[in-house]
């Protein structure tokens, strides 16, 4: 019948009127973040609390937004020292390519999603400052992506 759908719609909304709200009252209640959700990049530490980063800079090269910068210097007696591992969280799009590319499993996507701040300076984070880079392990981790066989295009 003409107009029956309208009445049905009215019925649905009035039923909703007496159902509890389904919205999550955010600051008081929070949703559980899915396990594989990707938010701000975080450094991983080994069992002793030492960063696993070797300062290989693959993450820096991989990042499409250029939000990662690693400043290194040579250490006396060989090896690298990380002066600063800088992460511009304000420009990061949380694509996770850096984590996927890391051969040493040294960074991860955390579940830190409340990224709004009151000051510009908080948008640039120094994840590591003035620490020794981890020595390169003999074998990269098993599930590291195989190097793609692409070649750079060259001018003829």
């Amino acid at each position, binding site marked *: 019948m003409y107009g029956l759908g309208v009445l049905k*719609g*009215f019925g649905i*909304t009035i039923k*909703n*009127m007496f*159902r509890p*709200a*389904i*919205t999550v*009252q955010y600051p008081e209640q929070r949703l559980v973040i899915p396990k594989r959700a990707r938010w701000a990049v975080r450094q991983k530490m080994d069992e002793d609390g030492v960063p696993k980063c070797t300062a290989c800079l693959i993450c820096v090269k991989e990042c499409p937004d250029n939000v990662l910068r690693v400043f290194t210097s040579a250490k006396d007696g060989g090896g690298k020292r990380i002066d600063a591992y800088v992460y511009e969280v304000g420009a990061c799009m949380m694509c996770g390519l850096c984590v996927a590319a890391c051969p040493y499993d040294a960074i991860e996507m955390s579940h830190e999603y409340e990224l709004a701040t009151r000051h510009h300076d908080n948008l640039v984070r120094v994840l590591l400052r003035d620490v020794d880079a981890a020595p390169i392990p003999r074998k990269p981790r098993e599930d590291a992506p195989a190097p793609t066989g692409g070649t750079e295009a060259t001018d003829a």
Partner: protein
Amino acid sequence: MTFAVGILLRFVAMVALLLVNGVVLIYMLRKVLGHLHLRIGPNRVGPFGLLQTTNDVIKLLTKEDLRPEAADAWLFNIAPFLVFVPSFMAYIPLVFGPDLAVTNLDTGILVVFAVLSLVPIGVMMAGWGSNAKWSLIGGMRAAGQQIAYEIPLLLSVLGPVMMAGSMDPAKIVAAQAGTWFGFIPRWFVIPQIVAFVVYVIAAQAETQQTPFDMSEAESELITGFANEYGGMRFGFLYLAEFSNMFIVAAIGTMLFFGGWQLPWITTPGWAAPFVFMFKTYVGIFTMMWARGSLPRFRVDQMLAFCWKRLIPISLVWVVVWATIQRLTLPGVVR
């Protein structure tokens, strides 16, 4: 002296009713729409968000009064008042109780719809004076819509007016006292059900509520004719919208639901305004309910619905009811 004081008091009461009503209705709209959509609505400012609209009013009052450089200054400045004043004037004939009205007009119903028909002119001026394309489209749509829907609105009002034999709201309400057959309240909605349905639809369109909010369709025109307005000028446009909502609900209460009278029992004088307000707010709730349930019409659908369905239905109903009343119910006319 007492005459002047009386006029002043009535004026103040009207302004107070309009403003308080606006604040309450905006809060109510947000809460009702929220719950209809399984949300909560405002809940941050004050307990249950009660102070949200008061804060909004303070914000509107303290905002800078901006006017676009290219706008037509005279039209732009005068338009909000041309929208606001008619809806203010329409409070004059409302009957809140046996002796509670600003003034008794013999043609009160006609006066309400006459002043409300000035609203589209103000809306057109706002749309044209803003000198912006969305505003202009919104103003044009509002004018076309309101002028079209005034016809079924007025025709649907004719039924109760014929039954009461008067255009005086007090007399129309008084004609609805008592019962039919001893148990059916003598409310005009029962014999005039067709006119009532037409009235509800036309009133919804006349106050530019969804599903007929062509003139300010957010997804199409941002806020239509009110686009370029800010501060208290926008506040006037907004307030007029809610005030019109109250007026059409109040008129519907008076015409179809016995005004301030309770069914079956004699209403004590002190309870009359509360009964009237309760019935009016039920009507407003229904309008908000429709607003939260129905998607927006397309412009051509809306106008086709008015000219091809509502106007013929209401015209036929007027003829049918006039015939019925002439032939079988000579006693109805007093």
